[in-house]
């Protein structure tokens, strides 16, 4: 298992998982989200190819109400 930090919280995921696997496990499929990995934006086209690594820091954001 890999140890990740996702939105500031510790989380585990199977070794070899890709960004798309994480997004699916979190129930965020098909949502207008953006993913940042170790401060680098991950393009949507790379969710299916980029493999997660030990200690990755992931941020997943979406639009909310704001002024």
């Amino acid at each position, binding site marked *: 298992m890999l140890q990740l930090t*996702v*939105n*500031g*919280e510790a989380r585990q995921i199977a070794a070899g998982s890709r960004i798309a696997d994480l997004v699916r496990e*979190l*129930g*965020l499929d098909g*949502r*207008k*989200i*953006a*993913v*940042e990995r170790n*401060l680098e*934006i991950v*393009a*949507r086209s790379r969710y299916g190819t980029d493999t997660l690594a030990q200690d990755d820091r992931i*941020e*997943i*954001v*979406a*639009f*909310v*109400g*704001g*002024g």
Partner: protein
Amino acid sequence: MTQAPTMTQSQSQILADKPLVVAGRTLGSRLIIGTGKYASYEQNARALEASGAEMITVAIRRVNLSDPSEPRLVDFIDPEKYIFLPNTAGCFTGEDAVRTLRLAREAGGWSLVKLEVLSDPKHLYPDMTETLRAAELLIKDGFDVMVYCSDDPVFARKLEEIGCCAIMPLGAPIGSGLGIQNPVNIRLIIEQSSVPVIVDAGVGTASDATVAMELGCDGVLMNTAIAEAKNPVLMASAMKHAVIAGRQSYLAGRMPKKRYADPSSPLSGLI
């Protein structure tokens, strides 16, 4: 009867107004509203409809991972129907703002954004040196930047010179509802700008929006004035009319102020 102006004349004068265009996007309404502080997204959506606004500001925040089924803004307000303007509210450095808007561009797929770099939580006044620096970074990165700024004409000019597509001076501190505090500066900014000037923040009630538009602003952006009204949907409708009234009043050109009375009825022919 033949001397009376026809409706057709006044209507054609109203129609002579050009629509607001920001970075190539034409807006049917000069009112832009925020989507924060509402009791619910459902109420927010009804207020938006009543306001007639076509552009809304939105924030970017972490997805709530503990409850992925919580209500989402996009379930109530369709990004295909309205222009979503991602903001950088809560950012206090240029780097924070750039990072936030790059994420917004990835999430939404569009490059029109609202930049605001704040200084002190007490007054939420923009940090203008950071704002200018962040705007430069964003413009180099291909963003169309609508910029929240102080009502300082000098900084407003610098922001326009570096390529911001709309200048958005505050009327009063964010969320204060104090109305337009410095009409002299707002008017100076309007006169010198060749991009749209949109008063952003400070409007408390409908007459404040009208005052801003009568100064010659191209639009008004507000959030709290609608969201924290006792009846937000009714206030949204009031704001729609206030912005239209102010715009038409500006275009019509007000009468000169006089120091003494001037009777409206003829003085001749008195019995």
